[in-house]
């Protein structure tokens, strides 16, 4: 796995809707810009060898970093794969939609649910939103949120951006009734 750069984004919200958020609400993202393992190989039918060679190492690299950047217990989480223009969306999906990748984050965050994800193909500098949901109950409405990310010079056509996002709480001024009240 060739990693070109690692980006850490920490966003703290102090007020929302004109009212104080105290303690401040934090969402953190750590992204690795890697060489697409299948770059230049044409249509690769069997992606399993590339997944085996890359996905677990990626999870191991990113999970502890995003937990550290958050600096608090993880309550909600999500993930992203943004494939450079020479690749297939399937390449990004291959790296993040496997337990080999996600379990590193699940264990580090003491989480149980599936990680919500965004995956797309785009040029360097694209803006993408990572969806986050509660780490043990994906129906907890207060924790449905997303964070917007942009890396100035990634992904290059032969690269993939892989990111993990973690939130220490739900939305800053969450005040929707729980899902169960509609049932």
């Amino acid at each position, binding site marked *: 796995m060739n*990693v070109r*750069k690692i*980006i850490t984004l920490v966003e703290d919200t102090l007020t929302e809707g004109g009212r104080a958020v105290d303690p401040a609400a934090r969402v953190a993202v750590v992204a690795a810009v890697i060489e697409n393992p299948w770059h230049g190989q044409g249509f690769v039918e069997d992606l399993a060898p590339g997944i085996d060679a890359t996905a677990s190492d990626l999870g191991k690299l990113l999970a502890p970093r995003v937990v550290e950047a958050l600096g608090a217990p993880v309550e909600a989480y999500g993930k992203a794969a943004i494939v450079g223009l020479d690749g297939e969306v399937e390449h990004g999906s291959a790296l993040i939609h496997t337990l080999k990748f996600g379990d590193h984050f699940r264990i580090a965050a003491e989480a149980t649910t599936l990680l919500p994800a965004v995956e797309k193909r785009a040029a360097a500098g694209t803006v993408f939103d990572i969806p986050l949901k509660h780490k043990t109950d994906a129906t907890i409405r207060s924790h449905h949120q997303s964070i917007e990310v*942009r890396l100035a010079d990634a992904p290059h056509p032969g690269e993939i951006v892989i990111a993990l996002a973690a939130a220490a709480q739900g939305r800053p001024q969450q005040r929707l009734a729980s899902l169960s009240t509609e049932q």
Partner: protein
Amino acid sequence: MFSSNPSPEARAAGIRKIVYLQEEVLLENGTAPAVPALKATAAAVVANPWLGTGPDTDLSEQAKLIAPQIARELTGRLLAGLGGAEAIEAFGKAAIVGTAGEIEHAGALIHTPYFGNLVREFLDGTSIICFADDRAEAGQPLVVPLWHKTQAATRSHYQTATARVADGPLPHEIVVIAAASTGPRPHARIGDRTTDRPVTAKILAGATA
């Protein structure tokens, strides 16, 4: 890394949000940098205290109140994220004023001693701090220039960091940015003033004749 909670003074300064973005380059042009560097921007989104005032308004009173709190909060994050003042070698600053503000409002929060002197002091530098400023809609990226914190003409440290706040500045806000790097560009190799040969149009004309 650093606490999510700013000082009460920073809250009082009207900060809505603080966005920290750090970049670590492991490979550039396929090769690991000889001197690995961390580079970061810390951006505070603050309410524009001069909204609706005319161009004859004295900006110094509010600048004196607000800018020092922002300087302390932003440099605190850079210091914690990058490993302290001893690790930081280059710095820069910037501001983006929202569309309801005046470009001078951006300048008022970064181009006075109430911000610049304190950023320099907290990051333990001596150079003038290079800068960028702009008026823009929320989500507009701004490329922030950095140079060496004690030897501004050190060419290896001429570099930039791109800052961006997804939902700021709102029209009535200002984004204030401090930036720092722990080293030079990944493969800096274009010499320096001390190694440059004399170059003028006349010399070049002779060289190509």
